[in-house]
């Protein structure tokens, strides 16, 4: 299995990670502020009170928050998109995705994959080198977030803009209409929040302080070459996911 280099995370990954932390939180809070002005979701081009809804969220209609909500949403969307593009482009060039996130072909075969799922469910911690590399489930989760969920968020967000769809109408018709785009935007955001919760839970399980330090300084407290005994004595060892 591949091993991460001397530092656990590159400078670029660390900087973009924390900028993303801030912008994602701002997007989430402002997105909720916008949503509660009309917490009903529809399918197709149009939707309003009096028309059939796909999903009626059990939230009261709350007005007056979408003004700042929208302004903050767009400001943080700019930060998120520029920061994310930097991460994605750099990751393609410096082999970050290929080295750290692309699963090995062998890991995708049925048996090893099933083993990875079973280990994950039982919280079996990998020893030695295994702990310094992402397993197949982590790799697939990160790839899905970076290359599927975030692009979908951007596309469905742009699809709600009447100015942008006047130039690229396919952007909204591909989703089945402006209200469908809004609904997909909501569900993909929910998936991202779910990912975030699991991400934080795994970081806590792997050792919150160590993992946060690694994402700030680049170095994990767990060094290679440590004796088996030391490892045994300090079980605050990187677990299967972070």
């Amino acid at each position, binding site marked *: 299995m591949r091993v991460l280099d001397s530092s656990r995370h590159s400078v670029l990954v660390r900087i973009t990670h924390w900028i993303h932390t801030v912008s994602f939180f701002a997007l989430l809070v402002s997105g909720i502020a916008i949503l509660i002005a009309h917490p009903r979701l529809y399918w197709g081009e149009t939707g309003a009170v009096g028309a059939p809804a796909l999903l009626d969220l059990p939230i009261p209609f709350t007005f007056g928050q979408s003004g700042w909500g929208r302004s903050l949403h*767009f400001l943080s969307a700019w930060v998120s998109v520029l920061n994310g593009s930097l991460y994605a482009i750099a990751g393609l060039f410096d082999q970050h995705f290929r080295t750290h996130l692309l699963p090995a072909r062998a890991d995708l075969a049925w048996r090893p994959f099933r083993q990875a799922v079973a280990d994950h469910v039982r919280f079996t911690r990998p020893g030695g080198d295994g702990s310094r590399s992402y397993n197949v489930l982590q790799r697939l989760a990160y790839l899905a977030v970076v290359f599927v969920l975030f692009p979908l968020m951007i596309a469905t967000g742009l699809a709600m803009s*009447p100015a942008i769809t006047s130039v690229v109408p396919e952007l909204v018709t591909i989703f089945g209409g402006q209200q469908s785009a809004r609904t997909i935007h909501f569900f993909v955001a929910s998936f991202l929040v779910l990912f975030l919760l699991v991400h934080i839970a795994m970081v806590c399980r792997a050792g919150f302080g160590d993992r946060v330090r690694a994402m700030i300084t680049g170095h994990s407290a767990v060094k290679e070459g440590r004796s088996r005994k030391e490892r045994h004595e300090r079980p605050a060892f990187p677990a299967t996911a972070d």
Partner: protein
Amino acid sequence: MSDLLSRRQLIRAGLVATAGASGLGAVLAGRYGLVPPDHGGIYGAGETLTYAAQRLLMSHHSLAREFTRRQISTVFPVNGEPPENEGYRRQLADGFRDWRLAVDGLVARPSSFSLADLRRFPSRSQITHQACEEGWSFIAEWTGVLLSDVLNVVGIRADARYVVFFPFDDSWDSLDMPDAWHPQTLLAYGMNGQDLPTPHGAPLRLRVARQLGYKSIKYLSRITVTNTVKNIGQGLGSVSPEQGYSWYAGI
């Protein structure tokens, strides 16, 4: 040590370059109409980036999607009440017989138009999607006169930068010239084949197809062409930014 120095120099050079680029960007953006009137405050950077990117990268004449009659919605909700003042009530009771739309400012021939005058212009109909900032939306057919036709008749001056719209109440809004000249920007007097209903802005409302619904201001009484909106209200381009909403609502 040399490593440290070079890093410091690098940071300094980066800061200088960033400051220079932003300064140059601001000058160019101001000159080419890429800075919205509500560019100040903490959210101003986001508003400016969105507006400038769209005006720079997108055609000024791209057409909002149009739909078929079968796609017209069954419900057409509205926000807000008709103007409360006596002037509007009298006009409404009178069937807008004496109503006139004044057009003034940086124009060669300040004019005023009755509803009958406006109906003599070539009439345009469009079936477009209107989304409220809150999230709901409907598709309706709008009929009216192109704003550009009216602007051409009064003859606007070359230094015009905004067209400002005043309704019967205290609200007001403005469009930049790309949206004012846009081939779908209507002064609408009809909706779904009938006279514009009162809750939808009778006798005349603006329809801006490439922006959110709140930009399509209702109950119009006067239009002013100007080169600055600084002296109107708080100088932010419309009442929307005064209430926390963006001036540019192309989104």
